[in-house]
């Protein structure tokens, strides 16, 4: 097992290197950081611009392969370079990862848990009213793009707050800088409500459909009947034997969602004004910030491969049939 994991790791490192290199090349050849300095009033002398861009390794007069070599050397030592205006990409990234994590952790877990429960209920009550209700709602939610859903939620909350006359639920930003201590913590949680709902609704809908199918496959199996023949209640047989077995496929999806959580949720972050990784990617593309784009892509690649690794481990933990062979 250890040898197998090591080999997987080695392959992953190569894949990350390829993905990040390609992303850097694409960003470095298509983006133009010079534009940010050129149109200024008063005009900045070209020599100064060149010197600044050189310092940030962003000068388009330097051959792209040379810039790539410099960037790659930095990345190997753990330095992702400078942003377009000279800030540290590392520092920015560290801050933003935490923001994304705070935003997504609850939503991801909640979405998975509720989705699995609803899917299992749906399967057990197949063709009954509750099954149809869950099914139709899931499809409606899946049919609405997340930016529409988030915006609708924000508008509804805005109207609710206005109707109440005070701010019951926060609909923008991450926290209120004027508060501190316990109040600040509660306020942070309040800020989380809307983005969490908008994030988890989609995943609840998604997981419930998957889990329903998996559960239906398992419900007809003999071992559920055996469990009941042993003297287990139907409910116990369903949760302990059927659901436990039917969880394995959903777990792989969950591992991916969990792993990519750190890369942020672009739309949700932009709409609710959280400055996380997703928002950063959009911002840095707008600002022609080559090093930031490369760093975000690099990080996303790492996350995806980490997620697939996680899903392998999770499946091995859940399914003894995989573990043994």
């Amino acid at each position, binding site marked *: 097992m250890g040898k197998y994991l090591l080999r997987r790791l080695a392959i992953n490192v190569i894949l990350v290197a390829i993905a990040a290199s390609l992303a850097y090349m694409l960003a470095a050849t298509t983006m133009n950081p010079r534009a940010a300095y050129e149109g200024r009033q008063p005009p900045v002398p070209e020599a100064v611009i060149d010197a600044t861009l050189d310092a940030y390794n962003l000068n388009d007069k330097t051959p792209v392969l040379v810039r790539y070599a410099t960037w790659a050397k930095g990345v190997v030592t753990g330095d992702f370079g400078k942003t377009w205006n000279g800030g540290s990409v590392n520092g920015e990234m560290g801050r933003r990862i935490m923001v994304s994590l705070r935003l997504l952790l609850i939503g991801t877990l909640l979405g998975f848990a509720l989705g699995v429960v609803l899917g299992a209920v749906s399967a057990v009550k197949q063709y009954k009213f509750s099954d149809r209700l869950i099914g139709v709602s899931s499809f409606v939610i899946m049919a609405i793009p997340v930016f529409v859903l988030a915006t609708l939620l924000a508008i509804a909350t805005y109207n609710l707050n206005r109707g109440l006359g005070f701010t019951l639920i926060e609909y923008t930003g991450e926290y209120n800088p004027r508060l501190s201590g316990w109040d600040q913590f509660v306020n942070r949680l309040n800020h989380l409500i809307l983005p969490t709902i908008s994030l988890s609704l989609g995943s609840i809908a998604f997981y419930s459909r998957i889990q329903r199918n998996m559960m239906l496959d398992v419900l007809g199996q003999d071992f559920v009947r*055996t469990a009941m023949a*042993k003297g*287990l209640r*139907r409910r116990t047989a369903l949760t302990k034997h059927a659901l436990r*077995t039917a969880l*394995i496929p959903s777990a792989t999806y969950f591992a991916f969602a969990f792993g990519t959580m750190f890369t942020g949720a672009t739309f949700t972050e932009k709409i609710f004004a959280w400055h996380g990784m997703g928002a950063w990617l959009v911002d840095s593309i707008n600002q022609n910030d080559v090093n930031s784009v490369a760093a975000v892509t690099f990080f996303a690649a790492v996350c995806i491969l980490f997620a697939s690794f996680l899903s392998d481990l999770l499946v091995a933990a859940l399914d003894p*049939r995989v573990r043994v062979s």
Partner: protein
Amino acid sequence: MSILQVKDLTVTFPGGIEAVRGVSYEVERGEVLGIVGESGSGKSVTSLAVMGLLPKNAVVDGSVQLHGQELLGMKEDDLVKVRGKSISMIFQDPLSAFTPVFTIGDQIAEAVRVHQKVGKDKAAKRAVELLDLVGIPNPNLRAKAFPHEFSGGMRQRAMIAMAIANDPDLLICDEPTTALDVTIQAQVLEVLKTAQQETGAGIVMITHDLGVIAGMADRVLVMYAGRPVEQGPVEDIYYRPRMPYTMGLLASIPRVDGEEGPLVPIDGNPPSPAALPPGCPFAPRCPMKVDMCDDEEPPLTPFGGGRHVACIRAHEIEHKNLTGTDVFPVPVIPPNEVVRVPRAERPTVLELDELIRHYPLMKGAVFKRRVGTVYAVDGISLDIAEGETLALVGESGCGKTTTLQQIMQLQPPQGGRVVVLGRNSAELDKAARKALRGDLQIVFQDPMAALDPRMPIGDIIAEPLRAHGVKDDVRGKVAELLRLVGLAPEHAERYPQQFSGGQRQRIGIARALALEPKLLVLDEPVSALDVSIQAGVINLLEELKNRLGLSYLFVAHDLAVVRHLADRVAVMYLGRIAEIGAVENVYDRPAHPYTQALLSAIPLPDPEMERTRKRILLEGDLPSPADPPSGCRFRTRCPKFARLSEAERRRCVDEEPSVARLTRAVDHGAACHYAEEIEVITASENQEEE
């Protein structure tokens, strides 16, 4: 005082499908009640209804009383106290009956903890004891294994262990050995007997295998179309059946101790529960039918001596002492012209010479590497003369199917030679290979899967003709083929799903015969069919062989069918031939210990013989073909090896035996260093003489 009393049980599924229509029976302590019937007769539904495990949309009526306590309509809270405690159930397919993600030990311990207030470690200890009781080696270690790490036979043992965990009063076994090989079946039945002695439980044994019932049951209930048609003590049912269906069933089974001659088939098919005929449901197939049979369904009436029969002519049958062979028309099969010529003078249609097929065992997802070899077929030699049937028998995993594939592919084999009709498969070019395929055709095991459901059967049968460029009068040929296999030419427009299993197998045979082959390969052609249907197909095969001068390579695991159909038999074990020879020689005087065990494991549909005969029980399971034992492959399970002296054993371990001709017989060879002919099955005629 009976433990279980079932009265007028009916089960109706949505759409008014009456799967069970009035079943009544009682089971007493320590008694074994056998329920026999063909698929769709409602025997499994009955037992699930007793357990309360039917899906919610099934309507169950009547009464099921356990120790006088009514189970039907009981609340779940009370029912869970009975299930697994007073009544346990053993299911057919042990592969899917265990939850794949929990260990066997945990699942047995769970059954203990549901009904007894014991700690986790105590329950785990009890699980190990139970596994030990059902004969699982190293129970301590094996309790921690997952279901997929157990073989089929071991899983069924574990299933029995779980069922007796709470000392039940009643065990319901639903086809407990149907999915297992015969030698494993014999082991499991033995365990079941031990379990019954241990618990003193009553057993309801549901099966379609009349041999298993003959050995186990005290009383028998015969079901047909959702109703019991005959019930009584096992001897009465087997020796003096009084309902034509039971009589036909007993007459239609091929017997491993059987005499020659055609089997007695029951015409037609069991009725669908959605469309029952008026009156007696068996009337359309019954040779004793009179007009009165269509008037009303005869009730199951007492007949004296604890017997019940549902037939208006039962007394007449009793009076005239009729048997199945008297009542059912015995088909006449024309004699075989070819076999008049001695075997040595007939041409050889198929010859295998040291045929080898090994599969590499690969590991790894990205970088595949070879970690071993599966010795699927490891040097087998045999030949089939014109007009002859050679049966290849053996348990699952012995290499039968691989051998077939090697022959059918007509490609150069990995090792050895395949010679079909005098042509070596290694020397064929593409055109010759295609031409040869016309002479070598196959009939598959599963008639459902072997026919394209979207094609009318006329097209299915015509397909080989078209593929080989036959253009004129295809329709006429198809009609002729349909008649040949006992179907009507006007059926050609129908689709496969409009036919029953037996008819579909006939269609498969017609397709195989379309090109007028010389050699027909039959891959378990009757194992998917019900007993009463099976006899008709076996007779058809025999008739076709004699009329058309065909040769058969017949692959089967049912040794009784083989005895009936084959002239010669080759017994395979782990990719090698253990014994080969004329059927009379191999069956009457088996010389290889494996053949002996195999033959002795087959249950005979005869209660007296089945109970008095001595069984050679094999230990353990088939070793993996990737890692066969050194020397003789059978030595790890060989009862003879166990009796040999240390010096004699050396030879078994070091030297692999090859098939050697036995001195006394013309056509009989065994691959055993210490081959010794013994009699395992006493022929039925001999018994009568004694």
